[in-house]
């Protein structure tokens, strides 16, 4: 179904990726990104000199076992965490050059997040959950509200906008989360095991929706998953293993 092969050696672009060999307008660029944590006194390297480039509107699956560093990589790409080494660019913006406030602003505007556990705010309604990123930015104007409505319509939940999340099924909750992630028209959507809490059928429909929306919005997607099925929805797949990325070849399984 799938075989592993080394990622094209970055040595071809010696001394880390340079401006010249990077596709102009890439949604996400990781240049020799490294990250390690201390556990007690022991240093544990999670990511080691990762290079990655995702084109606008490209969908990339990130495969790997639990603890392989998928979430760490997503955190770094989302500006939630900072790398020990290397450079990260989202939509051409160098995250390393941003201060705390800048990173927050960047995250607000350029990144959408979807979590395994949905992470909707239970005391807020569906519409309010979707509006949150707009509100943090002070942009919940008429256009903003229209955008919220439009997205809820597109995820098929317009009629439930006033309900609280706990009245929704898991799939519905994740669709709300999807709408929330896209509401600011981010350059990059980061999804961490978005279907991990869903049954297969529901997962399929959520992923299909993600596909459609990402394509329509022109948003690049980086989705961490351990499910090959999920990965199959993407343009390409990468596997994270012992801190390194490998290209995963996907067996097209959605033969008509």
């Amino acid at each position, binding site marked *: 179904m799938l075989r592993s092969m080394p990622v094209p050696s970055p040595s071809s672009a010696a001394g880390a990726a340079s401006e010249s060999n990077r596709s102009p307008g890439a949604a996400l660029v990781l240049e020799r990104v490294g990250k390690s944590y201390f556990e007690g006194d022991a240093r544990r390297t999670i990511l080691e000199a990762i290079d990655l480039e995702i084109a606008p509107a490209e969908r990339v699956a990130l495969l790997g076992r639990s603890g392989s560093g998928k979430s760490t990589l997503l955190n770094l790409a989302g500006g939630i965490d900072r790398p020990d080494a290397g450079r990260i660019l989202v939509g051409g913006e160098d995250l390393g050059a941003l201060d705390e406030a800048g990173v*927050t602003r960047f995250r607000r505007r350029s990144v959408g*997040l979807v979590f395994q556990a949905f992470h909707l705010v239970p005391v807020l309604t569906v519409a309010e959950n979707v*509006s949150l990123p707009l*509100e943090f930015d002070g942009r919940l104007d008429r256009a903003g509200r229209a955008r919220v409505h439009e997205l809820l319509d597109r995820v098929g939940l317009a009629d439930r906008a006033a309900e609280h999340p706990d009245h929704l099924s898991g799939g519905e909750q994740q669709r709300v989360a999807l709408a929330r992630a896209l509401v*600011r028209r981010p350059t990059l959507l980061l999804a961490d095991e978005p279907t991990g809490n869903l049954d297969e059928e529901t997962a399929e429909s959520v992923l299909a929706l993600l596909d459609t929306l990402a394509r329509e919005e022109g948003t690049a997607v980086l989705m961490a998953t351990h499910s090959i099925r999920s990965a199959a929805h993407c343009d390409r797949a990468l596997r994270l293993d012992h801190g390194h990325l490998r290209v995963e070849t996907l067996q097209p399984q959605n033969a008509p």
Partner: protein
Amino acid sequence: MTALLRLVRRLVAHRPWQPLLATLAIALGVAVVVGVDAANASASRAFDQTVDSLVGRATHRIVGGPGGVPDELLVELRVARGLDSAAPAVEGLARVVVDDARGRTVRVLGIDPFAEAPLRPWFAFAAGSDPAGGLPEIGPLLTTPGAVAVVPETATALGHTVGDRFEIEVSGVRRVVELVDTLRPRDDLARRGLQDVLVCDLATAQELLDQIGRLDRIDLELDASQATALETILPTGLRLESASADRGTLDELTRAFRQNLTALSLLSLLVGAFLVHNAMQLAVVRRRPLLGLLRALGASKRQVFAAVLIEAAVLSLLGTLAGLLLGVALAKGLLGIVGGTIRELYAAVQVDAVQVDPWTLTLAALLGIVVGIAAALAPAWEATSVQPRMAMLRSGLESRARSFAGRAAWVGAVLVIVGFALGFAAEGRGMVLAYAAVLAVLLGATLLAPTGTVALLWLARTPLTRWFGSAGSHAVRSAETGLSRTAVAVATLMLAVSATVGLGVMIQSFRSTVAHWLGTTLAADVYVSVPQSMATRLESHLDPAAIEAILAVDGIAAHSTYRRIPTDLLAPAPTRGPAEVELAAITPAPGTLAMFDFVAGDLDQIRAVLAAARDGVLVSEPLAVRLDLDVGGKLRVATDRGPHDFEVVAIFRDYASERGYGILPRERYDRLWDDPAVGSMALWAADGVDPDTLTERIRDALAAVPQEVLARSNRALRDTSLEIFDRTFAVTAVLRALCAVVAFVGVLGALASLQLERRRETAVLRAVGAVPGWIVRSVFLQNGLLGLCAGLLSIPTGIALGWLLVHVVHRHSFGWTLLDFETPPRVLLEAVLLSTSAALLAAWWPARTLSHTPVARGLREE
């Protein structure tokens, strides 16, 4: 921002208990501040209104020494000098006799109705002219023996109507008065000022008060040049002063008393602040995952910070508003107690109505909100440190909490040391420093509390496990692992409870000191005095016939007379209080010296002074503190012979008067003042005569004297003094109880919500097999344990607080050095019981809820 605020509102609405209790805590704190301040202010205001209504348009007044102002001066001013605004007044206190045991203290005010119109038009209504045009009745006021007039409210209070004759008691002598008219001042101020005043004609007042030939003052309306001219012609011993000099007197008199109360009320607000802090801290801890999510979704640090502060501000605002209302209600309750103490100790003023100053409310409101927000600063700061995360585990937080506890303990220890250092430094240096010391020690103690909690939990683990099995061990472990929440709760409770301990220690130390001092100072066997309120400007004196009768009694070995007068303090300027000083003239007896506990001074010199062999004065410690006097210093006072310099020869301990007084021998007094009166006497029984027998004999001898004179044995006087002491401290005890209520509410709220936080944990436990009973036991055990921790930790903190109150705050306020420092076991036990019982009560609702919540629902909780 609006999103965050909406979110906060929803979160609060979702779990209202904790915020509600924080609100209540602020409300209580603000209420106590408002209540105490309003009660104090109302008393002062009532007094000033009395003063104002009695001052009227007068600009100046002439007053004299103990002999008052001679009648002749009025004639001189009005006839020879044509000062037709000169209005005389004769004033004194009297008790309207209800029955033998009861009475109502009133002020007898004798005026010349004809001289009043220019100065005080409202006395015009002494004539009672009613609008219908009936003949006014000035005649009866002048011509009816013992004629008095009162405002209708006072008539009602006394239960008398026009035409009634009733008895009043003045200096122990009963006299009959007749209510001939009611005063109906149209002016509200005058009406309030005349509460409990028997207005009568000058002549009637002189006769009723036994002050024939003597006026208390002459009020005048003068311009500056007239005043200067008048000053030069006044006989020695009389002086011209501003008519409104009495304004603010009560403020001055009761400053220490009020300062003390204010300090204690602020303490209760501080406790409220800690409860808000506790609530916000818990809110932040509880919402960490949510905060992480929000940060991940793009909320900035500033937005998160502001959201927490705004939540606190809203809670504080609500609490403050409730507190203001509650405070006004509380003021009504406190007013009775505060007013009673003031009447007893300071001045005859009837305080009936709470008058809430808008400033008091504004200030208290600001204080409540600012304190509430300040208390949330740390939690708000903490909230911004929450990293944007996809998920957050608490264990990381708990390990940080523990290391924080360690660091906090060091800071706390330093703060406590700094606090005590400040305390020592503050002695005699000002209230601000004293308050800073108290605050530092309390903050330090709260920072030490988490470590103390860890230690106590560690100690408790083994016995609890042994006695209660797994429920016990779980209770301890769960408290330890939830340290980020439990430590804050315990610290807060500890603080709240320690306030009650501190106050208890203070009161007890005070009482014990006074009791010991009374033992020394009441060295004679029998004391004879005239019943009187301490509030009189000039004490009542013994009828010469009574003195004669007493000295004729068999079995008296020695006696000493005593006369207390107020006089003008000319130098040095007081550091606090009015420029007036009380002097006591005594005729020494062989036992006199033994009655004093001298702080400074040479015994030979003191003997010389008492024997009038040299000039000098002995001053009480509070006076020395108030005037910053030391032995060798000079005290310049007004006498009937003009200004006189006294050298301070000794300083003695005294707890009878917070303003202090000086003692000089009678012989010298008689040379400087024209006042033969004797206020009281101390008598020593001859060998072989039982003091009680002597007391009886004196009482028998006094039976023939028309004046009512009290003869009390040493022991009876001592008991009476302590009784007065207890009454004085009644209000402090009330504040202590209020602090306890705040503490109780705090314990209840913090621990109840702490347990409710454990819904999911409990659900898991039940899912894996814990029966409801086990859950209940564990909840009760944990709460009881935490309550006990707080109670135990409050003991050292409370003792430290008590020490500061006794040695710094009181020394500064009252100038009293308390020799005894007592930590009554009852107070300590109460603290532990209060804390533990509140904690156990707080367990009731969570235990019920947790053990009944369906497991599945509990598990779903995030």
